[in-house]
């Protein structure tokens, strides 16, 4: 039950001021995303209104409010990747999966995100699936990478 997991997290932060962001981070880490019920529980614990908690959460790029896919694909669009064709790689992934950045495929297999710099600029352009980094990407390699994570669609 998600409530017991929440209580465990809340106990860690009892009496600590300004702890709502670390709480949101831990909860997302455990549950995958922040549902409306979860936000409302966090609000009660933090003695804030639900709108305030959602206001904080929605300000930061890290927080998700919908379920994400089994595999998270991050295409780097840092400046080094941009000048080496990162946008073309993102276009290709978008085309292959049929979803835009920020979206998840219907079968919940893949979520697609764009990120600003993964820090391995010498290997640009770069994409990351879960924790595996694919470097010096070229368009024809995209399909192969996706196929290793199971057929899309």
């Amino acid at each position: 039950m998600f409530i017991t997991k929440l209580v465990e997290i809340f106990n860690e932060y009892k009496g600590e001021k300004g702890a709502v962001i670390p709480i949101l981070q831990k909860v997302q880490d455990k549950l995958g995303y922040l549902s409306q019920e979860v936000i409302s529980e966090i609000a009660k614990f933090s003695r804030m209104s639900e709108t305030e908690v959602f206001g904080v959460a929605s300000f930061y790029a890290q927080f998700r409010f919908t379920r994400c896919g089994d595999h998270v694909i991050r295409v780097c669009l840092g400046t080094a990747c941009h000048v080496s064709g990162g946008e073309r790689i993102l276009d290709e992934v978008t085309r292959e999966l049929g979803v835009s950045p920020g979206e998840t495929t219907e079968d919940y297999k893949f979520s697609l995100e764009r990120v600003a710099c993964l820090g391995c600029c010498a290997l640009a352009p770069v994409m990351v699936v879960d924790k595996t980094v694919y470097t010096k990407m070229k368009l024809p390699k995209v399909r192969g990478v996706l196929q290793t994570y199971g057929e899309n669609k």
Partner: protein
Amino acid sequence: MGKINRTSKKRYIVHVCLGTGCISGGSLNIYKSLKQQVDSLKIKNVLINFTGCHGFCQRGPIVDIEPGGIFYSEVKEEDVTDIVQQHLKKGKFVDRLFYRHPSTGETIPCSRDIPFYSRQQRIILRNCGHINPENIGDYLAVGGYESLKKVLTEMTPEQVISEISSSGLRGRGGAGFLTGLKWDLCHRSPGNEKYIICNADEGDPGAFMDRSILEADPHSVLEGMLIGAYAIGANQGYIYCRAEYPLALERLRIALRQMEEHGFLGNDILGSGFNFHIKIKEGAGAFVCGEETALIASIEGKRGMPRTRPPFPAISGLWGKPTIINNVKTLASVPVIIAKGSNWYSGIGTEKSKGTVVFALTGKIANSGLVEVPMGIELRELIYEIGGGISGGRKFKAAQTGGPSGGCLPASMLNLPIDYESLADAGSIMGSGGMIVMDEDTCVVDIARYFLIFTQAESCGKCVPCRVGTRQMLIILERITKGDGVPGDVELLERLANTVKLGSLCGLGQTAPNPVLTTIRYFRSEYEEHINNKRCPALVCKELISFYILPEKCKGCRICFKNCPVGAISGGKKLIHVINHERCIKCGTCFDVCPKRFSAVVKVSGKQIKVPEKPIPISK
């Protein structure tokens, strides 16, 4: 380059770079395999150690062997056997893994002789690539925490501040405020509850200096933070680090644990009566949180929005208490200044910009990586001597410093000395240390649009000129790159840019227009070419380019036909291939895959090439 005494009994110490760049290139497997082979062969007197970022990311994965500083680059897992069998067992170097000078072809065995390293002056990065970041013993062996001891036992807070002030150290986060002055302000603020925050919320796309330092040498930063805390009178510190930096966070946590075990953290540190505690706060991904007051709001658990200053955080910051926020590189400089003295430090650099500056050199440069140079170095030396020039023999077009807040410096500025003042005069900023090099294949209008996409999305929305102005600027830039620009757009952009700069509260809005303004200043004709002739001279802007297959060069090999992701190419064996322009998405795959010896696919802008309508047989 400090040799580590603790381990000098060993015949060889092997340092495998486990920075993010080299790990992405597979160095973790190299490290494991080295360990395994040395263990199974029972080779004695060899220590397989690892380090953080070595700096020369372009040639990663890097393996460095002491003694001698033998530098093996672009190492693959298959090479491990040779390193073990030749070098570690027989003492014979594996020559084929040496760095090869790109123009002379000469092999260079030691890192200190490679131009990329030999022209640097590493103060902030002094330990990066030389010590194991997860072992406090390595840091202690190179004199770590000696400055802290000196400060706690021999110096008053006032003396520390005066030492830092006379060194001339300026904040390395971007604005370049004098660190000593800031500390002094906070030290004098009344109250006994004060805070020091290490700003590691590095958000520039294409910048990885702070992350690399935290991954390679976390203790230097932490020691600097303790010295700062002692100087201002803080007992609690925070490290605000991006959550996207898992390795940096992990190494910080390990470092904090080891500090506690050694009595460098907690109550009554080293018996001095000074108490200090550090908490890590993970930034949740908002570029604006690099701004001091926004960062404070974020630590307090609020939306990370900046507020008006004064009061400055040094007077009223976190929870309304006096607070100092210093960048990672600023703090990492502090222990060296204490150890070697302010006279030594202020002897490096220029009149107003003292010390060294770290750049993450990336883009179309031969040697991507992390470099540290004295302030005042010419842009040309940085790009051509250290950076090895432009990759692929192309021509230099511009260098962007300061990320989305900075500007593009054109070829005419290659003689510019790099320091806070001259960069500001050129319309850019020093920033935190990102430097992206662009060649003639980079479109500056597209770059301006790219940075605006970023700043527009990251604007917190508090100030209307920033929120709405960046949006309007982006709309104009988008229409220019799509070929829908109208005369007057450039002037309109300039007017908007100046309004956004004037009417924004924080650094984000005040600097967001810089990439647009500098590209207009130095490359106005390129904007005009897009607007008036619907042509992208760098052949980048998708809507303004077309691909053609030249009938006289096409050999009918079908490679482009097979690789086109949308089936826009028709053709067959021994037939001249033709691109269907209605279907073409201009991804450039055909251009990339067409064998160099044919070079049949061309990219053009602002003109048409006459080609057959349908595939026809190749004429012999």
